[in-house]
């Protein structure tokens, strides 16, 4: 009789034949329970499910615990851990050099809202195709817990120090300045963050996601407004976010009265089931007003605040060649002898 062999079931793969493990990175060295680790997990899941080729992705970050995290996901993607607060310029150069890259920037609240504010502002203005994630814990984790500029008024450090300066709202800024996909989420809200990341991958332009990501070591205590507990009590989702990728050709009915559907650049659909009746995520002014209201009310508003899948990106504006500039051949980037001769003649 033929012997029966038992073999392990083949690993589950995505639409390009890769397994989740192909999206993993090095072992994390961040504290156990750090929100940043959960965000790395969500990035892995979203990239896997969207079937993004890891080799196409360029990870970029600044300096901080958050900025270290690209080492802990997507090991098959190139990565650049740059200087503190100035990842946006590095990302800009990389995308201009090779527009076929999918750029994923990871920053911290310190990295973005203090030392990096200048570059953050100009990145948003340019609508560079890039997913920019702020892993926001209200403190400088890596330098041991000083307040950052996103810390809320009245929030308290472990040492008892009270923050008496108003916070920078990176989402309101991003909407104002020209980013075309802006949202806030929470590292502990698996479903929402997952859907938002997938939609981010489908977007062409700057995606700015501020993800509240508690620092268990320096900012998870009573009196902190970026703790797990505080988020549990104050997270105020604007919508229920879901996402239908372009390659999943399923048509699920939805009620246009209660759900806004946005068709993304690649044909995917972002579905936002309204929890607030009149909220329109394509209205910039409304988005800014609503964010300001949230501050007044002391809510932590999450969800997709603004989305515009049609705005031209920086790469479109510069009208650059379809082929990556980085590897254009000499015949294209070095004009012929006759050009030099012509210029010399003009200068004689």
């Amino acid at each position, binding site marked *: 009789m033929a012997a029966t062999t038992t073999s392990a079931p083949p690993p589950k793969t995505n639409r390009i034949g890769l397994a989740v493990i192909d999206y993993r990175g090095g072992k994390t060295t961040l504290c156990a329970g750090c929100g940043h680790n959960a965000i790395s997990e969500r990035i892995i899941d979203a990239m896997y499910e969207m079937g993004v080729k890891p*080799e196409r992705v360029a990870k970029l970050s600044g300096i901080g615990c958050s900025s270290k995290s690209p080492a802990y996901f997507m090991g098959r*993607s*190139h990565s*650049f851990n740059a200087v503190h607060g100035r990842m946006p310029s590095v990302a800009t150069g990389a995308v201009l*050099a090779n527009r076929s890259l999918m750029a994923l920037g990871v920053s911290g609240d310190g990295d973005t809202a203090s030392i990096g504010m200048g570059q953050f502002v100009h990145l948003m203005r340019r609508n560079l195709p890039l997913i920019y994630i702020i892993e926001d814990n209200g403190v400088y984790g890596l330098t041991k817990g000083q307040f950052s500029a996103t810390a809320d008024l009245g929030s308290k450090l472990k040492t008892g120090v009270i923050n008496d300066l108003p916070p920078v709202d990176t989402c309101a800024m991003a909407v104002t300045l020209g980013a075309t996909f802006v949202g806030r989420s929470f590292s502990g809200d698996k479903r929402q963050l997952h859907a938002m990341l997938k939609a981010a991958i489908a977007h062409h332009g700057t995606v700015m996601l501020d993800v509240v990501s508690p620092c268990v070591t320096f900012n998870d205590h009573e009196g902190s407004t970026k703790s797990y507990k505080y988020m549990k009590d104050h997270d105020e989702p604007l919508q229920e976010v879901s996402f239908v990728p372009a390659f999943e050709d399923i048509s699920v009915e939805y009620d246009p009265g209660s759900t806004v559907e946005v068709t993304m650049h690649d044909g995917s659909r972002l579905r936002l089931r309204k929890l607030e009746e009149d909220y329109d995520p394509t209205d910039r002014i409304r988005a800014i007003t609503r964010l300001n209201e949230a501050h007044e009310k002391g809510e932590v508003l999450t969800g997709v605040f603004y989305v515009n899948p049609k705005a031209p990106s920086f790469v479109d504006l510069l009208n650059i060649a379809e082929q990556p500039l*980085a590897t254009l051949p000499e015949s294209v980037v070095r004009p012929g002898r006759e050009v030099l001769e012509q210029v010399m003649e003009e200068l*004689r």
Partner: protein
Amino acid sequence: MATTDVALREASGRAEPKHVVNDMSIQVATVNGSGSQSSNSVLLRSIFQMGVPVSGKNLFPSNIAGLPTWYTIRANKDGYIARKKEIDFVIAMNPETAQEDVMSLAAGAAVLYDEPLNLNSLRADLIFYSVPYDKLVAPVCPEAKLRKLVRNMIYVGVVAKLLEIDMGEVEKAIRKQFSKKVKAANLNLAAVQAGYDYAAANLPKRDPYFIQRMDKTKGKIIIDGNSAAALGCMFAGVTVVSWYPITPSSSLPEATIEYMKRFRVGADGKATFAIVQAEDELAAIGMVIGAGWAGARAMTATAGPGISLMAEFSGLAYYTEIPGVIWDIQRVGPSTGLPTRTSQGDMLSTAFLSHGDTKHILLIPCSAEECFSMAQDAFELAEQFQTLVFVMSDLDLGMNNWMADPFKYPEKPIKRGKVLDKEELDRLGGFARYKDVDGDGIPYRTLPGTDHPAAAWFARGSGHNEKGQYSERPDDYERNMERINRKFETARSFVPRPDVVANGSSKIGIIAYGTSHWAIVESRDQLRKEYSIETDYLRLRAYPFTREVHDFVKTHDRVYVVEQNRDAQMMSLLKLDLEPALVTRLRSIAHIHGLPMDARSVTDELMTMEGK
């Protein structure tokens, strides 16, 4: 300034020959923003077209309009184009500086002035010509609001008559200047003619200066160093440019934009380049590094204040080993300093720009030709050594007009350095980003986007091992830093070699670099002719120093290092490199006034130090 440093009232007293042909400096003193630039270029071009070697130097204030500006044209039959200390012919258009301009002249100089200034009573030992500009301009330019611009053309005509510059050449120069604007050309031409006619009727020749036809500029071009650099970068295949405006560098990226728009847009109408005006120099260099990491030939251009801002990022590029080209068009520091004056004051700080042990390759052009050719060297070296290369130009070179031989089309194909592609990775199976495979210190890299599962590496400014993994191990750190140093040592045999002129018997050597070169050429002749002193000369073209530099110091008793800064910065770099016994042979001649270096000052100082 104007002329305060001029070797005035030197009792030396020049002999006054009747005819001084093709050897003079003309200084035009005007007000910033008065449109004298066109007149000055027309004058410069007319002399150039007559075959006489010429240079033009603009001495301008850091201001848009209303402050004094001087433009100096030097015509010299022997080809000396450095700034000349003595002014022979002043065109005094600026009431505010006219007195000082005149008082600082040496006896025998000629002064062309606006009649109402009444300068002729100031001194008896000068030759004065007065011109009623306002009276002359009205008939040629009925439109009152254009008169201010056309008025300056009148002196071109007067000078043409006095110096015997061919009016045919002047017309040609005007047509070139206003190329497509026929009406403007005609209007300006009429103004020149009015000046010429006035001089012919009213100003009998009393000065000894003449321009006569020669054939020393045949085939040559006139261009500023920044435009030459822009052209060089275009032909070097630059694809990403990021910059933040700062004098005197802005015209480099601006010229790049113009050339690239003309010659680097594909048949499909798409640009084969991206040029971004960044939000500051931090972002400018960040973009260069990001683009270099992704495989582009990327560059930025700046001046001292920008270089200071780029310090942290420069260290990142050095340590992560990312190529990029940075043009430093040096101006006078520290801080804002004299933003519109020239200097070689960034040499030391740029060589070691950033914290920790960092050092960078510097290329040092002295001419428009070298701005063009070194642009290509810079990109080749940056990619070969996977590091930043700084091209140390200066305001004098970058912003002034220079005669140059037509640029040579690059004959060597573009080399992209040690980059592994998918096929090579298939063959190798993988690679270690920071491993010294070839013994030259230069590792292999891959570009983001390379379609191979083993292509990725992690670029980080923190400590890393051969594989690019995070490491705080002392041995990893040390090994890596030693390897990067080996790269620098390797670079010594690849950077542009110095230009050496040696006769084998002189005991005195001169080392200079960049635009100081033009003063040295002339000063060596002065030393020979006036003092019978023969000198050898080495013109540095790069840092790190090559073998020739050591040999040069070794074979001379005394070596004068001539440069345009206070602290003898290049001499300091040399001292760090030379064996201790040779260090004492070095002597410094350093100038910091912000004006292009002149030969006379070098000659005088060298003779004083020689004890003569």
